[in-house]
């Protein structure tokens, strides 16, 4: 593992439930998790297990009912909406399943977009966006609109957008869910490179075992509880003995 041993993300006693049709449905209960700086963690679990909810709270786009989410020592659950927005802009890079690019902006303009929230001069912003696009191998597609790019290329633009601010943490929600195998492999390779070469801490939610296998560690979420691959294997052995 390339992680340096200190926990970048510390999740403590995290609880979250949603209200559906007047009833409170628990999604996560008393979750504890440490993600080390430079780690590449895959979160797996069946649909509705709460893995995206956990990712959203680590990324600061959702708030827990109880518990703490400490990222680099900051309890983000206690931040106000505006503080949280500023924190996300500075510390989190998002990679979505459906890329979520602005369709009216070119690849380079999309990548440049998060830098609009910084005080960098226009020329510097453009230079950084171009560097990020070169890093993901899209230097020849800078002026293309998303509609002129393949799914894999769009996701690479989204990754460039995610890293252009040099964030502390990259969160990827099913980054290969909308891609064919070849494109998915490219994206996973790119994420691996970002982790190993640039030391980016990555938390990825995925259904795909092959994608998860590219991570350093895999955690499973089921019925609101978090477990490691070893825990899952042990449970499976115990279950077969009882049977």
């Amino acid at each position, binding site marked *: 593992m390339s992680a340096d041993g200190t926990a970048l993300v510390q999740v403590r006693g995290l609880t979250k439930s949603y209200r559906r049709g007047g009833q409170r449905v628990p999604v996560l209960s008393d979750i504890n998790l440490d993600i080390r700086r430079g780690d590449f963690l895959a979160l797996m679990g069946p649909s509705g297990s709460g893995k995206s909810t956990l990712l959203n709270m680590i990324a600061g786009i959702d708030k827990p009912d109880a518990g703490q989410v400490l990222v680099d020592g900051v309890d983000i659950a206690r931040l106000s909406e505006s503080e949280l927005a*500023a924190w996300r*802009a500075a510390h989190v890079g*998002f990679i979505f399943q459906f890329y979520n690019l602005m369709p*009216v902006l070119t690849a380079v303009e999309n990548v440049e977009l*998060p830098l609009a929230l910084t005080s960098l001069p226009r020329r510097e912003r453009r230079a950084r966006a171009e560097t990020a696009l070169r890093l993901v191998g899209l230097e020849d597609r800078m002026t293309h609109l998303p509609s002129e790019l393949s799914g894999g290329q769009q996701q690479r633009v989204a990754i460039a957008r995610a890293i252009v601010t040099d964030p502390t943490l990259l969160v990827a929600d099913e980054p290969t869910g909308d891609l064919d195998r070849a494109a998915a492999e490219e994206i996973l390779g790119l994420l691996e490179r970002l982790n190993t070469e640039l030391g980016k801490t990555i938390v990825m939610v995925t259904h795909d075992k092959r994608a998860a296998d590219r991570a350093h560690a895999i955690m499973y979420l089921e019925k609101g509880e978090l477990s490691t691959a070893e825990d899952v294997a042990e449970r499976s052995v115990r279950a077969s003995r009882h049977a």
Partner: protein
Amino acid sequence: MTSFLKLALRNGMRHKLRTGLTVLGLVVAILSFGLLQSIVDAWYAGADRAAANRLVTRNAISLVFPMPINYREKIRAVEGVRSVAVANWFGGVYRDTSMANFFPRFAVDAEQYFAMYPEYVLNEDEFRAFLRDRKGAVIGRKLALQHGFRIGDTIPIQGDIFPGNWEFTVRAIYDGAEPNTDTSLMFFHFDYLNETLKQRVPGRADKVGVFVVAIEDVGRAAEIARAIDEQFKNSAAETLTETEKAFQIGFAKQTEAIVIAVRFVSYVVIAIILAVMANTMAMTARERMTEYATLKALGFPPAFIAALILGESLAIAVIGAAIGIGLTFPVGYWFAAKMGTLFPVFGISPQTVGLQAVCALVVGIAAALLPMRRAARVNIVEGLRFVG
């Protein structure tokens, strides 16, 4: 700022047909509003042109009832009155009853009348020729241009209020001293009308529609008006004397219900386009909820999202307003020309243009309010899951 402008402007052009149709709707609304407001202004233009030193005396019951001609000398004798002139609405039909051939005709005491109206600028020689010719007529420049009348031409009029065939010879053409002077009128000698009536229908002779009264001191207008009316109290034809402005407004007020309706319709048009525009912006914002959620996730504040929608709405409103206001001038003057002399002084005032711009601005802002509120408040997690 550049990212904001790029997004707002390019978003506006995303659905070219929808944006185009909305802009077209705005153009039609702003144009209609401008035209209707200008028609209302033209309706009251007479009152704006009225001079403060002129009074108008009419029958107290109604304008349609005449007064005896001998009132002229009695009014002239009132202290503070400088001069008095008869002005009789003649009516009649030139060629046919279409609006294109309508123009106001008045029988007046020529010398006294034109002395009271310095805004009608006459060539001295032509005016003398008119005074010499009992059947002579003075016409305005706009009327002359509209019908191609020249000095010496005969204008045949079929009488209606005053039956019979009447012929007038153009002896003078007047210009307006001010841009808003009405130059679509025709004047001829009251004596010609009165003497002809004496021969044809003696019972209708020596009757007058209104007296125009020039006074020495504007400050004494109310006092002089009272003094004039006092003279004819308890007579068969009591009078009502008022300032020319009040007379003109009173005349316009006879059709005030129509004017109010026109004004109301002009604002209804704006309300309709507001609804159309609000619908466009609501659809637009709904379709882009995932994008707004993404922007918020990236750290953009709610105010940025709201400003994006407002910017797009204002851009559409400004384009629609610019084209609409630009078109108001040629369409307005074309419309006024088609209406002949119905609106003798027709213009698109700066106030009308200002109102058009304000209406477009209000539409642009109001249409964006609800979508702005909704988009700015979008929950990021729900917005990212949103399927528009």
